[in-house]
């Protein structure tokens, strides 16, 4: 369960006493309830599930995670596999 996708807040408005946003998901735009993230601002990203923004998406964290993945390979290419070294159990490195 829990199909949730990251979207960017385009507009915010009050509707029926409820804080609602227009959220863009890469060209697909839907109305989303902001009641659980009342301080989310236009331009920010949130994780949206069944029409509700449930958590702010931390863009800095996302960037760092991707950097880590990039480095994984680099480390491996440049210095050999770190865990392999750590575990002391040599395995065949696979070529791309």
């Amino acid at each position, binding site marked *: *369960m*829990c199909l949730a*996708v990251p979207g960017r807040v385009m507009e915010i408005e009050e509707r029926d006493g409820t804080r609602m946003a227009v959220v863009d998901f*890469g060209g697909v*735009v*839907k109305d989303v309830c902001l009641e659980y993230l009342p301080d989310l601002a236009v331009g920010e990203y949130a994780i949206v599930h069944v029409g509700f923004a449930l958590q702010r998406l931390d863009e800095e964290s996302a960037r760092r995670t991707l950097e880590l993945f990039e480095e994984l390979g680099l480390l491996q290419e440049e210095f050999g596999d770190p865990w392999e070294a750590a575990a002391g159990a040599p395995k065949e490195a696979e070529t791309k």
Partner: protein
Amino acid sequence: MPDTDTLAAPDFSNWSCPLPLRDHPRVVMGHGGGGALSAELVEHVFAPAFGGPVLAALGDSAAVTLGGVRLAFSTDSYVVRPLFFPGGSIGDLAVNGTVNDLAMSGATAAYLSCGFILEEGVETAQVARVAQALGAAARAAGVEVATGDTKVVEAGRGDGIYLNTAGIGLIPAGVDLRPQRAEPGDVVIVSGPIGLHGVAVMSVREGLEFGVDVQSDCAPLGGLVQAMLAVTPDLHVLRDPTRGGLGASLNEIAAAAGVGVVVRERSIPVPPEVANACAILGLDPLYVANEGKLVAFVPRQHADAVLEAMRAHPYGAGAAVIGECVTDHPGMVVARTALGGTRVVDLPVGEQLPRIC
């Protein structure tokens, strides 16, 4: 990965539905979804009742011989809601859907019939708008509406406008396009980006509305097919992946020809808006409907030239090789994923539903 060798091999010999229609004393929406339930209705109900040799061929259109002339003959009913959607209308679909089914036999549509089932109370202006769209689409496709019919049903027993068209066209000499002709080694080509029609319609469907800059790809494919046949009349299979999408079409071909099909997911042209709409709704673009695309099974030696001819045509500009036909896993379609894994692309059971998980 799980160790396949150590698994006891189940007996697959009797894997057909053991109790046909057992769960369906009544028709459910999925019986019209173009997937497994639709196929079951044809197999267990319609074919035994009125199927003959031509119907049994189960192509997009039937190839019949009349007065020494080979004709393609096809019908579809159109029940799309709403009647107008970004990029088209039920009138456009009623023309292009049938024109394209004829084109999948290699025929250029010559004449259409058109049956309107109107619900009492539908605005006559709306009927006129649909009729005008149908007329414009017919002119664009170069086909003439030759005969028609109108029925009115009581309010609450219809839904505004349903349409049926049937079409006939000549099949050129030497052309024999049938799903049964797919064979290992054939290259699988799709004529352009997929999923546009389905996403365009969903975006304006009541209760599901979302904003997206996507137009239905609804278009007549007769010209594209003629351009392909000009390269070689020896194409094996053409199919327009409408209801059930590319996934259903590939499965139908694999099943009819008893071949395996492998597609490389990364090669399948999926526009970002389609991918993103599917991501939100939990749908697979492979099962989303198209109305202006075809999938072709082309002998390997002609594949380059056919692809080139397709790309030179406006309705084939985005054509791409997406896979091939294999001897393995006959009747099944397998996708190589972007990551290098594989998955089975099954015939959808019924209609696609938004998921939450």
